[in-house]
């Protein structure tokens, strides 16, 4: 009996001891089980992909093209060609927890989200890709430019370290927006004419009167007939609610913070690229609001009288960088959104309505004659609705309900007042998604070369265009998509990608290499931009407290940000 007890004790102890080594798995421990039979005559390239929002089709198709292009190439002696294995999922492929385990996997290329570039660099998770980004041109693909030359200056300064090296590239542009239903506008006559009346096209789809010029204040452009200012926008909402039987807004109640994140777009559009960039770069001089007078609304010129100029930022006054007038303007917009309960869907603040249900409610609304005009969501919302099967369900039930049958578009945000008409349309974009090569291959020359080749391939104009066409999203690089490539895209997708070639549009990337940004990056998340002592989402605060003015909430946000300590 004693002997048996001893044996069992040893067995349990050995089991415990074995479990202690569970975290020590090295190369080859994480086998990529993509189901693809391995061709041992070819080099194997393994890619990990986070597919939330944008799916995996773009990568699978790119992988096939890469395999075809390099089918006769020897990446390693004795092997001709390459096989690309894509391991793609929504869970376990993004975030800091995923990042910490990357170097113990055998993935060559990592495509991920919700990670901070400086963590990737300082933790030595990514291989040095300076040569393929800065030095080598894409001449193998017929382009005599480097990947770096396609990047915005803000992105270059963020991604290039002090040692003049690159370790990762930004993956996709991520922002929140207002989507509008063009078919609904046509059906209900919601377009604004030059004289301010609401009109609709004739049976041939043509307008018999001139449309208003829209926010860009230019005739015969993409935004003609759309509301140009906040006043015009909310007058349109009133017209929708009172006379057209249309509910203006809907959004996911569970993720009402999407409205908050969208407000950053209003802020950026108010300030313009150069000024908005300063809240991340802490460049001075910066014009900020000192205090708000009255109820905090802007004057007829869209200005706030009580502003001041910040000449320099220290850790004590860094919080003031968030006091730009654009923030107050966005608060005004939010307050007006809930100023009339007819302006928003009854479900909009219900916590059991997640993003998928909100998208479904929006898509079905006009099909069931309870139309909703605007959806506030991420720019990837159509992909989510498709992946969730929403479009499929609707197609089965209704005619012309498929993704390519509907005509949604990205609403160019109205300007605060008529004084801002004609200013460029500024879109603020987050860059939390990255693509990099696993540092575990630093000492494997052949594998590194193969992975670098794949990364270069994915950043050719052709592949950047293919990404956009497949996902209806943009990559943060300078490229345009030819019209002939867009034929298979939805209207919404075409509208999103066409902003890249629209000279009236500019994109500001919410990144900087200033230490106040780098060491306190969580303070700059779009959903955090309007956090105050009473909550995070101004639209929720205004709804629950109708008597609160813009000044009330602005000061609450100030009070909160004063407590933040910037390293």
């Amino acid at each position: 009996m004693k002997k048996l007890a001893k044996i069992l004790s040893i067995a349990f102890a050995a089991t415990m001891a074995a479990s202690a080594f569970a975290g020590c798995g090295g190369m080859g421990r994480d086998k990529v089980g993509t189901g693809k039979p391995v061709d041992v005559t070819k080099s194997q390239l393994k890619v990990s992909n986070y597919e939330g929002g944008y799916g995996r089709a773009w990568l699978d198709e790119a992988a096939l093209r890469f395999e075809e292009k390099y089918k006769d190439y020897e990446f390693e002696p004795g092997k001709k060609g390459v096989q690309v294995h894509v391991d793609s999922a929504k869970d376990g492929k993004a975030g800091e927890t995923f990042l910490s385990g990357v170097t113990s996997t055998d993935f060559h290329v990592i495509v991920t989200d919700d990670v901070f570039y400086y963590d990737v660099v300082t933790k030595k998770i990514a291989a040095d890709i300076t040569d393929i980004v800065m030095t080598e041109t894409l001449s193998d693909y017929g382009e005599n430019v480097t990947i770096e030359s396609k990047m915005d200056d803000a992105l270059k300064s963020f991604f290039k370290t002090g040692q003049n090296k690159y370790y990762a590239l930004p993956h996709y542009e991520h922002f929140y927006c207002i989507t509008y239903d063009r078919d609904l506008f046509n059906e209900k006559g919601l377009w604004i004419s030059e004289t301010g009346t609401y009109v609709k096209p004739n049976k041939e789809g043509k307008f018999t009167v001139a449309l208003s010029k829209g926010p860009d204040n230019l005739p015969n452009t993409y935004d003609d007939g759309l509301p140009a200012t906040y006043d015009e926008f909310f007058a349109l909402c009133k017209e929708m609610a009172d006379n057209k039987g249309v509910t203006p807004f809907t959004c996911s109640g569970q993720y009402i913070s999407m409205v908050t994140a969208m407000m950053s777009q209003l802020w950026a559009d108010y300030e313009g690229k150069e000024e908005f960039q300063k809240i991340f770069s802490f460049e001075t001089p910066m014009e900020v609001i000192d205090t708000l007078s009255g109820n905090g609304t802007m004057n007829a010129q869209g200005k706030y009288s009580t502003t001041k100029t910040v000449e320099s930022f220290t850790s004590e006054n860094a919080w003031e960088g968030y006091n730009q007038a654009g923030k107050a303007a966005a608060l005004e917009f939010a307050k007006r959104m809930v100023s009339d309960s007819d302006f928003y869907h009854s479900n909009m603040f219900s916590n059991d309505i997640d993003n998928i249900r909100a998208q479904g409610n929006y898509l079905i609304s006009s099909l069931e004659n309870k139309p909703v005009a605007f959806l506030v969501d991420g720019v990837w919302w159509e992909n989510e609705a498709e992946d969730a099967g929403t479009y499929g369900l609707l197609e089965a039930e209704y005619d012309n309900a498929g993704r390519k049958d509907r005509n949604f578009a990205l609403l160019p945000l109205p300007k605060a007042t008529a004084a801002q008409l004609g200013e460029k349309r500024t879109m603020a974009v987050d860059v939390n998604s990255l693509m990099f090569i696993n540092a575990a291959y630093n000492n494997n020359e052949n594998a590194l070369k193969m992975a670098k080749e794949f990364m270069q391939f994915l950043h050719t104009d052709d592949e950047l265009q293919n990404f956009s066409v497949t996902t209806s999203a943009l990559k943060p690089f300078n490229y345009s998509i030819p019209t002939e490539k867009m034929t298979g895209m939805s209207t919404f997708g075409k509208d999103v990608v066409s902003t890249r070639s629209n000279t009236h549009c500019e994109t500001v990337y919410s990144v900087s290499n200033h230490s106040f940004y780098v060491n306190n990056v969580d303070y700059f998340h779009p959903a955090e931009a309007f956090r105050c002592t009473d909550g995070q989402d101004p639209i929720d605060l205004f709804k629950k407290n109708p008597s609160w003015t813009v000044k009330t909430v602005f000061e609450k946000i100030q009070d909160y940000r004063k407590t933040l300590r910037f390293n």
Partner: protein
Amino acid sequence: MKDMQTEQDELLQGKTETSFPVASSESVSSQAGGVLTRQKPRKNGMNRKRIGELVFYWCVLAIPLIQFVLMYVAVNINSFLLAFKEYEYDMVNETLNSDWVGLKNFKRFFTELAQDKLMGERFLYSFVSYATHLACGTVLAILFSYYLYKKYPGTGFFRVTLMIPTVISSIVVVILYNNVVEGIVPKIFGIDAPMRSGSKMQTLAIVMLGNIFMGFGSGTLMYSNAMARIPESLVEYAKLEGCTPTREFFSITLPLAYPTIETFLITGLANLFVNQENLYGYFGKISPVDPIGYYLFVQVADGAHMTKYPYASTVGLSLTFVTIPIVMVARKLLDKLDKGAEF
């Protein structure tokens, strides 16, 4: 015939068994005329066996001990040191640097405590949460344990149903409770989802209700086990003397189960600033109410950067310095309440 010397040599070499214990390496010689010395114990089977056992025990304990040293002692020492550091990204040298900043983090915490309304609210939520668990959870658990101990109707059923939330993973219970409260209840009563649509205190109340229910089983089990140790003869004697159940509860059951109750009260107090009420399971990183335990957890949860760790460590350490005297004083007071009743 062997002489004594030869026999002693053989004993020392373990060649011959001896009927008497030999205590030392020195040999006893009566005839050789040598000095009387103690017999050296031979490294015979018994000592070897003892050594073997000790080696075995230490080998078994080694892994958990190493784990304890690394995962508890070292981690806590590192946490302690973190409170006096600051992390900064150095993109020139591509490193994350840590610098000693002395009491800077502590100054920041105490400044926030004085100025930041939000920080004050976090402590309020923690106190409200503790008080509610004490008043409702612990009291109800004791009363219900008495019910089970007296084997009143439904005892078997309650034992099983109360155990279920304890056995099932807490995140599963949280998801179930969330779906009932936020999905089924609003549909039945035609109201807004109560956890997310009302005030912060309403949210906290509903969350606490779920947690009290989840923790009910384990408390009830411990208290009823303590009560079950009370001698039956004592209870019968009390009954014969005309003792009512209520009187029995206050005069016999509670005093005899008091040591167990006191233990739970002390450990509950120690968790005052640690308890996060499963809020992460309900709301993720964005909860409308954030007791200090939840706030600290979110500071370092998935996605948090190293730059936030020092401050979180500072707050934790400061609260530890506050909690220790509170717990010690509470323990002294509770010891005074102990009537010293024994079985």
